[in-house]
């Protein structure tokens, strides 16, 4: 191998290296288990929302597929995991979780053929339509799903037969955080792989991608299916940690909130969904304490503010924040950051 080839190889290695910011992020995330024991219930919801948002980021931020129907996968897997637990079909929660994810992935694979045709607007409508249809199906078969009353009588067995879910949410939070971390690791492998790079190419220019032999359609089907799997895992986590599942897991609001979370956090760098979920949940919590009735006003206000401030591009916001965080962390650790291409400009 020539010197230059070695340079190229080390460039690609550096590109995928964990930055100090990322390491600090996860240390803090796991430290929260001991730092905020009384906040575990809201942190559980946050971790689930983060995983759900990660699933949307994979298709929106990396492949450019906009969707208002992620709730379809979330809800389907939520009901599936509730039903298998209720009727004792799959008692091990981890196995049930994976199966729920696979069921959601199957739906993702099938619907991908409807969704991936057409433009952004078509996609919004088709994804929305699929989720609405599924919501109505769940409502119609109330003997199975419990309809508007929700799915009652779900009892989730202890994880690995040892760790019982408790009412303070301690077990649930640790469980969700570990699942989130594992899913994140998989997502991270994917986006730094040749497959992940080809998705960014397809997002940038599908016509050109085909001209360098990238099978555009196949790649989009693949990532849409993977995204559905992650969304399904998130939905199953919600059912397992709350021992309950209701129709709102399939609601439009759930999909719309998800877009909001990604707009807050930014797309296309994996942490957008995670950071967005933390900000969104705690902002919601905090505002709800201040004005219990009108909290949605302030969420809407913040949304308008965020979009106006970063109106050039949604990603402009996350790049500025990322640059800021990288500087912050690297100053703290007095080390040069490895995040090479973070935008130097910030407001």
């Amino acid at each position, binding site marked *: 191998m020539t010197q230059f*080839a070695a340079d190229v190889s080390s460039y*690609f290695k550096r590109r*995928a290296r964990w930055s100090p910011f990322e390491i600090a992020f996860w240390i803090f995330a796991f430290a929260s288990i001991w730092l905020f024991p009384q906040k575990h219930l809201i942190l559980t919801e946050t971790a689930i929302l983060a995983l759900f948002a990660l699933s949307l980021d994979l298709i929106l931020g990396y492949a450019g597929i906009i969707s208002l129907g992620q709730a379809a996968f979330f809800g389907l897997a939520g009901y599936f995991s509730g039903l298998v637990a209720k009727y004792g079909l799959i008692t091990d929660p981890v196995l049930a979780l994976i199966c729920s994810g696979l069921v959601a992935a199957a739906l993702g694979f099938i619907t991908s053929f409807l969704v991936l045709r057409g433009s952004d607007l078509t996609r919004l409508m088709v994804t929305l339509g699929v989720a609405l249809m599924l919501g109505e199906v769940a409502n119609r078969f109330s003997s199975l799903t419990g309809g508007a009353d929700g799915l009652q009588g779900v009892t989730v067995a202890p994880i690995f037969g040892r760790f019982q879910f408790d009412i303070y949410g301690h077990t649930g939070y640790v469980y969700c955080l570990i699942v989130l971390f594992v899913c994140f690791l998989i997502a991270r492998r*994917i986006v730094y792989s*040749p*497959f992940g*790079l080809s998705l960014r190419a397809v997002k940038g220019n599908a016509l050109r991608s085909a*001209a*360098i032999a990238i*099978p555009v359609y196949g790649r989009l089907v693949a990532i849409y299916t993977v995204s559905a799997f992650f969304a399904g895992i998130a939905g199953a986590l919600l059912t397992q940690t709350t021992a309950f599942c209701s129709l709102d897991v399939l609601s439009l609001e759930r999909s719309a909130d998800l877009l909001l979370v990604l707009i807050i956090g930014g797309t296309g760098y994996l942490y957008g969904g995670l950071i967005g979920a933390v900000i969104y949940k705690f902002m919601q919590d905090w505002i709800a304490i201040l004005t219990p009735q009108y909290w949605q006003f302030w969420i809407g206000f913040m949304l308008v503010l965020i979009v106006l401030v970063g109106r050039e591009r949604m990603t402009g916001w996350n790049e500025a924040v990322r640059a800021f965080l990288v500087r912050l962390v690297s100053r703290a650790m007095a080390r040069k950051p490895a995040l090479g291409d973070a935008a130097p400009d910030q407001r």
Partner: protein
Amino acid sequence: MAILETKNLTKRFGGIVATADVTLAIEKGARHALIGPNGAGKTTVINLLSGVLKPTAGRIFLEGRDITALDPHQRVRLGMGRTFQINQLFLDLTPLETIGLAVAERLGAGADWWRQVGSRSAVTGEIAEIVERFRLGDVMHERTAILPYGKQRLLEIALAFACRLRVLLLDEPAAGVPEAERYELLATIAALPADVTVLLIEHDMDIVFSFADRISVLVNGTLFVEGTPADVARDPRVKAVYLGEELDA
């Protein structure tokens, strides 16, 4: 035997006939130029050959194989691909990543979702070689969006090379390139391996006549004249139809 052939290729957009009954045969290793006045349907022919458009009638053969029904990426895998008249690059990626994509795709690593990009030395070795060959080393870490125009044109051609194309469709490679950067571009095209077949679409007559060993003239979607550069230059009909219009424009 011709490496690339079309038989009665026709494309209609509603009532407009963009390509009418074009039968072309391009020899292996040829430097074939396709010229014609504005609106003659040159770009439609490229789109038909590369698979972006499907013909209304007629067939396309690559090395004797009927490829009329294949998708663009399948034609690239078989060794025929194109460059674009206006740069169609991945603006958010670096040249290194862009070339890496094409190389990975050709070596069958494109669907690999687990290993990192560049973890296979066969792939990185080849990426490095292409970056050096196309003189992109000094800008390889920059975002493509901020590269000078000439470098972007080079990257376009480097991409075609990275796909190991045996038949290369160049759609106005020198369009809009400033005079100062033009030489580097032409030198690169001239240095393409002799066994690579090139179909060039170009407005600039200097380039066409210095590069091509065979010229087809397209007028109103039909093939008008075909021959050696000397024949075409002498042909009075070409002078009347083509060069006359060129002077007006």
